[in-house]
């Protein structure tokens, strides 16, 4: 047996040595031939000579996120069709290349690379989860390309290669807290969330806001994404008896949480829940019965009573059937395509540097109201809305901020913010 081991070890050792030797060789030769450790960045291959221009849509059409991201894909498609019907962008028709992110960050990175390097698109629209955005960020920075990201998120990011058309925390979480404090007069709160970066960051913000405003945080509970086991969590919520619950649960977990919540006799009157991840699209899935009277914080609702929104809702139902509903992320995606069009037309160019330079101040009369791009941090100014869920499954505005709120992804304008120490 000893003879046996020696032979194997020798062989493995030899193999390992060769492995190290070859990798070292490869590194040296390649480094001397090209040098530089700076971001070389591939030169853009976008073709602007024809009468059409390629853009990329990158949404999860399969996997766990497909149910949400498919709606974003539909509203992006609708925006592209409208723009094409009206003559395109700078006289060029939009030609869409669609890719499936498959609900996996590494696939998002792969497909983003494909859209930029192989299809040579002028800009990419899509992404939903923070992990998908984090995975794509180095791809867009490395290739110096543009991504339009349409979902509210946890902030603390500002890449010059990404435009964030969903809300950052000071346009969703912070207004919701101010509403709870000033209108609902709460003095205590309970935090429930899925275990990933958005809820953890949101709760870090809530805890610091609460400490500075005399609100007691009576509990903080996390469940893994997709968990449907909420018996003990709701028991803790009930025992703690807070004035309100701040809910950052995602997806299916909401079904289990609200069923349990109602089952244990808690109601919107006795202990209201403010949710930041339940939109019109999710209400039927969670069950209207379980949600009636509860609150949400977003920047858009289907019920917004403006001519622009009425037309948007009607067009969307016409394209996708009468049962289709509109919601915040899909509206932000629709808006993102028009904002890109505005930037390109202002710059009179599809070049990334020109679009970036022209971005500041570009505005659009969106279904949610007027939005304006911030040239510094590439987020957009938008109005915060607190809504209440009614028994028709729609959400109605009960409070809105005084006009659009300037985006502040790093919360620099909030003295109580000391950083996301989680």
């Amino acid at each position, binding site marked *: 047996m000893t003879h*046996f081991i020696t*032979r*194997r070890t020798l*062989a493995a050792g030899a*193999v*390992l040595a*060769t*492995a*190290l030797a*070859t*990798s070292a060789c*490869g*590194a040296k*030769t*390649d*480094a001397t*031939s*090209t040098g*530089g*450790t*700076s*971001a*070389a960045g*591939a030169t853009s291959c976008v073709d602007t000579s024809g009468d059409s221009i390629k853009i990329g849509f990158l949404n999860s*059409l*399969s996997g766990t996120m497909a149910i949400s991201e498919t709606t974003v894909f539909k509203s992006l498609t609708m925006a592209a069709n409208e723009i094409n019907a009206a003559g395109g962008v700078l006289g060029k028709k939009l030609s869409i290349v669609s*890719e*499936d992110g*498959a609900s*996996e*960050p*590494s*696939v998002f*990175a*792969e*497909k983003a*690379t*494909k859209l930029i*390097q*192989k299809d040579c698109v002028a800009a990419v629209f899509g992404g939903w*989860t*923070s*992990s998908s955005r*984090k*995975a794509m*960020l*180095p*791809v867009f920075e*490395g290739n110096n390309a543009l991504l339009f990201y349409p979902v509210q998120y946890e902030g603390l990011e500002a890449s010059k290669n990404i435009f964030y058309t969903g809300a950052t925390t000071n346009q969703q979480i912070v207004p919701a807290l101010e509403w709870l404090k000033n209108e609902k007069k709460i003095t205590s709160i309970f935090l429930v969330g899925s*275990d*990933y*970066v958005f809820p*953890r*960051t949101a709760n870090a913000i809530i805890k610091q806001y609460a400490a500075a405003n005399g609100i007691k945080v009576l509990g903080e509970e996390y469940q*893994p*994404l997709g968990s449907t086991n909420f018996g003990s969590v709701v028991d803790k919520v009930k025992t703690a008896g807070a004035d309100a619950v701040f809910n950052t649960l995602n997806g299916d977990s909401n079904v289990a949480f609200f069923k349990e919540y109602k089952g244990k006799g808690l109601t919107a009157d006795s202990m209201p829940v403010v949710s930041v991840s339940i939109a019109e699209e999710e209400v039927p899935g969670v069950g209207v019965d379980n949600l009636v009277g509860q609150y949400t914080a977003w920047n858009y609702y289907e019920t917004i009573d403006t001519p622009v929104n009425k037309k948007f809702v009607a067009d969307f139902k016409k394209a996708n059937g009468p049962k289709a509903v509109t919601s915040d992320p899909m509206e932000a995606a629709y808006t993102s395509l028009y904002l890109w069009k505005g930037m390109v037309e202002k710059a009179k160019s599809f070049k990334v540097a020109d679009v970036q330079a022209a971005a500041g101040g570009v505005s659009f009369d969106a279904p949610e109201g007027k939005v304006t791009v911030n040239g510094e941090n590439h987020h957009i100014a938008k109005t915060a809305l607190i809504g209440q869920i009614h028994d028709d499954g729609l959400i109605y505005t009960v409070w809105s901020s005084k006009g659009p709120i300037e985006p502040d992804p790093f919360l620099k304008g909030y003295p109580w913010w000391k*950083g*996301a*120490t*989680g």
Partner: protein
Amino acid sequence: MTSPRTSFAEPTRFAKAGPWIGLAVLAVALLVIAPLALSPFRLGLLAKYLCYAIAAVGIGLAWGRGGMLVLGQGMYFGLGGYAMAMHLKLADAGPNGIPDFMLLYADGQMPLWWEPFRSPLVTLAAIVLVPGLLATILGLAIFKRRIKGAYFAILSQALTAAFALLLIGQVKTTGGYNGLNNFRGFFGYSLYDPANKKMLYLIAAGVLLLSLALVAHLQRSRFGELLIATRDAEERVRFLGQDPAFPKLLAYVVAAVLAAVGGALYVPIVGIISPDDVGVVASIGLIAGVALGGRASLFGPALGAIAVGYAESTLSERFAGSWTYFQGALFIVVLLLLPGGLSSVLAKAREAAGGRRLRRVHAEAGEVAAV
């Protein structure tokens, strides 16, 4: 066991040289033809498939030759990947810097156990030693207790699920659900530079060839025969005075280390490692490639992993909305018509050509008892 080869037919000259001829062909294809024929984007994708292939080679040894359905290789893939990712984050952060996500989510506090990963040498050692040691400890506990079959498969899958959950829960030290990403350099070379991407591809190809050579050697050694004997009749091996735990442990450890090396290369090539890349689904993805390619053959697992990666990319590019159905159909068709995987096509062709001696090789490679 003075003359272990007597239990098998003396290999023909072709069978003796077969793996080395195959390796040479594969080396030419990967190191010469592919870099010339493929665009940088496609070459980058192939590099990613090669990382899966390296892990698949190990699965071929443990599952195909050793009969252990290793359903949780994602854990070892992740250990290697996260070790590499930690080093890349620290290298990007500078001599005394700490990773960007810790500034955001951990108040700039870095746990002490991250510190050793500043050193490239420690990192390279850890990529091999940590999974190797863990596999040794787990393997000893499992195989000495004679846990096998479905119980072993369930255990390995549960471990990888727990590993992914652990990563998600530790946002401050592992980046949580987002994982570790946004790497700028790889041991001093910019990851944005296309020439360095090509270098990474060549390293992955080289490592795959070496892994294949290692496993080819192991398969033809006395250990390889003992492993097959253990797979097919563990009790008889025990009666003959051999401890079956030993060959199983060795195969399991080699598979773990190969998965970790694949994971470590995956990080600079793909640019991210997250719980999604190491969890249950990712682990099954690895197994799927091996089953498709032919688990008991030398080249089957690697070629299967590359084929699955390629099919996934091209099908999803062509049918963005419905590609998963095509992928599922492909699996069913292949495994229905070729239970031994794609590699059994060659063996079947050879058999049809009339090599009687090779029929034994085919029987050995193709019809492995299911777990």
